[in-house]
């Protein structure tokens, strides 16, 4: 059902956890639908120095969170805002059709965290 890449990120997810005093936090989804993603950013000079996530959700939700955090780490916030769910799906070598919405969630969580950072910093 899932690609090897998905299973790899699901089995050994990167960047799991929280960041104390994060510069930006984004939370999307809700438990009612079975998926919540929460992303924490540490940002310096508009560059994402560190990123962590916590996710409640299916295998695809965990894998997309993991790879999305890898994809934006070290990027500028403008670059990170370019992240699309399509790019996430491709990076995972595909997702089953009914799981595409997990990748949308990952894109939205990243954006929400950056928005939060911008708001806090009046950008």
């Amino acid at each position, binding site marked *: 059902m899932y690609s090897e890449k998905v299973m790899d990120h*699901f*089995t050994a997810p990167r960047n799991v956890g929280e960041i104390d005093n994060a510069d930006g936090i984004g939370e999307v989804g809700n438990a009612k*639908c079975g998926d919540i993603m929460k992303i924490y950013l540490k940002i310096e000079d508009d560059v994402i120095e560190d990123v962590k996530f916590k996710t*409640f959700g*299916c295998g695809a939700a*965990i894998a997309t969170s993991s790879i999305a955090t890898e994809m934006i780490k070290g990027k500028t916030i403008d670059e990170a805002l370019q992240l699309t769910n399509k790019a996430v799906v491709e990076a995972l070598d595909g997702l089953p059709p009914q799981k595409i919405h997990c990748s949308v969630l990952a894109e939205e969580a990243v954006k929400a965290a950056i928005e939060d950072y911008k708001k806090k910093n009046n950008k």
Partner: protein
Amino acid sequence: MKMNKRIYLDHSATTGTKQEVLEEMLPVFTTNYGNPSSVHSFGRDAKKLVDQARMRVAKALGALPEEIFFTAGGTEADNWVLKGVAYANKNKGNHIITTAIEHHAVLHTCEQLEKEGYKVTYLPVDSYGMISLEDLKASITDETILISIMYANNEIGTVQPIEEIGKIARERKIYFHTDAVQAVGNVKIDVKAQNIDMLSLSGHKFYGPKGIGALYIRKGTKILNLILGGGQERGRRAGTENVPGIVGLGKAIELATENIDSHNEKLLKMRKKLIDGVMEKIPYTRLNGHPEKRLPNNANFCFQYIEGESLLLNLDMKGIAGSSGSACTSGSLDPSHVLLAIGLSHEIAHGSLRLTLGDDNTEEDIDYVLEVLPEIVQRLRSMSPLYEK
């Protein structure tokens, strides 16, 4: 790493075919392969095999052989009952009573009948998944033509008070159907004593083959046919008989019902160990279903703060096969209608795990699950934004 361990704990989804069952089937594929409708010896040999299997099924249920009709499985049997009784008894009424926790084979057919103008009452269940007989009585109207209530639930294992329901239905002269797909081989069934008019079953749930089931129809029941064509099954269900499947079903039901007590004793012992162990070792856990009136092989838990599929995948990587909700609904995004019907919130319902035991399981399997499961739950919880430790 215990890579090669494979522990199957999903016997309510399906079971493997027992060796003894398969052995009876084998010659039917290659030697006694005649069409039972044929006049010649190949055909007559096949017909004898079908008749023998029909007798075995009848015996297991306390029915007469002529009351047993073979189908392609539990789903077809359920579809047949609901449509067949509804269409045949239009003149008597248009109301059907069922429950909120039936299998989709029943629910989706009821929804179709609603579109066609029938009225359907979906009885609610309590937090254990049990219907109330008072609710049932109160929902009966002059228009009620059928009560269809499952014998045992496929997800949480709750067993309904079938005999009492049968009595109520009989008193009110309303047909009573029970979907016994999960019950056969696990509980003792006697259709006459329990006043059951129709009963669905499916071979692959009790170590028989897939793609074969049966519908018991009490003599004299008014029901139209579902599948039309040749005159097989005494003109009630068309299509060349699946003779190997029928033979396998016959053998499997005999094996499954002949020593049900000793079989259940073993299952109950393992289940107790499993449930006690899980409840003790894993906090924030709920046991779903009735504490006693449940299938002897069923354990169903909700682990708060985590989601079922990721739990299943982790268990699978450790060689443990379980399910979250029923096999049919996992893979969909909605939590199981059964878990919602017993009053769980969506959030909790998403974290369910069903482990269903079978003849091939051992105490060691349970030990292994109790070793592996707490770690996995803990790991997923530590990744969950909902879990604040």
